[in-house]
């Protein structure tokens, strides 16, 4: 049997978070309020590289959490972060992703990374469903998720409050049969094999 590559897409690859490089980059990204407001609902707040390292040390639920650095294939540059948070008994996982380096946004890197993480969830973790949250003021991310095969399914009306405006908190998902059908349409991942089992 052959295995398609799990970690390498067309623009980015999933890699380990290696410190101090990763901690320093992430600390820098937390100083970008726009980034912080796109990746989550918590108040934007800056943290130091030392704090990032301490947080990674303290990470709980290691057996249900899969966290990666995103690196460009061309140039091996660290540009973002991505991860999965698994509920094993229900075979579903949350997917989270952020492109920390602004000049790499809106150029297909995010979509490529979402596809890799989704593929990892279905092929490596045996998931039935991958789900994610996206805010109504982030149409760029929504387009990326749609391109990766995700369907919008829940809208929490006005659940995000930013600069005096209310935006929706949206949930999207892709189910295993939908992903399988998409692989079929787009050509199997095994075409880009680089490793053999």
């Amino acid at each position, binding site marked *: 049997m052959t295995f398609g590559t799990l970690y390498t897409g067309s623009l980015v690859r999933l890699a380990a978070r290696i410190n101090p490089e990763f901690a320093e980059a992430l600390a820098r990204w937390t100083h970008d309020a726009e980034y912080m407001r796109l990746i989550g*609902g*918590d*108040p934007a707040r800056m943290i130091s590289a030392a704090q990032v390292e301490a947080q990674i040390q303290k990470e709980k639920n290691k057996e249900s959490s899969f966290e990666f650095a995103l690196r460009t294939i061309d140039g091996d540059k660290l540009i973002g972060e991505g991860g999965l948070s698994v*509920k094993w*008994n*229900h*075979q*579903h996982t949350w997917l989270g992703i952020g492109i920390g380096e602004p000049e790499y946004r809106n150029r297909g890197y995010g979509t490529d990374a979402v596809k890799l993480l989704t593929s990892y969830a279905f092929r490596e973790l045996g998931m*039935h*469903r991958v*789900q994610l949250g996206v805010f109504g003021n982030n149409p760029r991310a929504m387009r990326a998720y749609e391109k990766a095969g995700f369907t919008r*399914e*829940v*809208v*929490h*009306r*006005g*659940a*995000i*409050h930013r600069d005096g405006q*209310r935006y929706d*908190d949206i*949930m999207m*998902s892709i*189910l295993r049969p939908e992903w399988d059908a998409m692989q079929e349409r787009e050509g199997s991942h095994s075409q880009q094999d680089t490793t053999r089992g």
Partner: protein
Amino acid sequence: MSSYHIGDLYTGKLVRLGAVKAEEKDALSRWSHDAEYMRMMNFNVAYPQPPSFYEEKMKEDHSPNSFYFGVRTLADDKLIGNTGLWCDFTHGDAWFWIGIGEADSRGKGYGYDATELMLGYAFRELNLYRVTLGVFGYNERARRTYEKAGFVHEGTQREVLYREGKRWDLQDMGLLRSEWEARREQAHVVEPERMLSP
């Protein structure tokens, strides 16, 4: 719509909200041995817990974003369930949950009464913009209760649950402050004078 009167923050028509006392850890442990109940409550694997587990939890539960109450009958002050709000104050949103642990107290309107109390608490005391909840696809009774309390269906998490060899949906529901206020107006709910005067 039937009129609903919220007398004070904690007292409804059938139940009141109160603290869960340490000695009631035995009741919480007993409920955790009811797998059907636990499967209504969350995604976790049903797993019975000893009273000491809940004793520890009560000590830990001091998050400023978490509001946790026992549900007690007005008739005999019996602890029949519990309920909570997990608040995101940045956005004025909260996750609401409730469970009637005593099996013989289900289907009698206690859950609905407690839900109305919690909505009153969320909007009158916590000043939230909205309240959010999730209800499992196999829990029709709970869904009817939430609809009766004014919650609006906001979407369906498809096949997010895997139980007894089947995939089940989860319904997301939400209630905005403006909807709650309109509903109260329609029901002619008037606060007693003593609540309004300083």
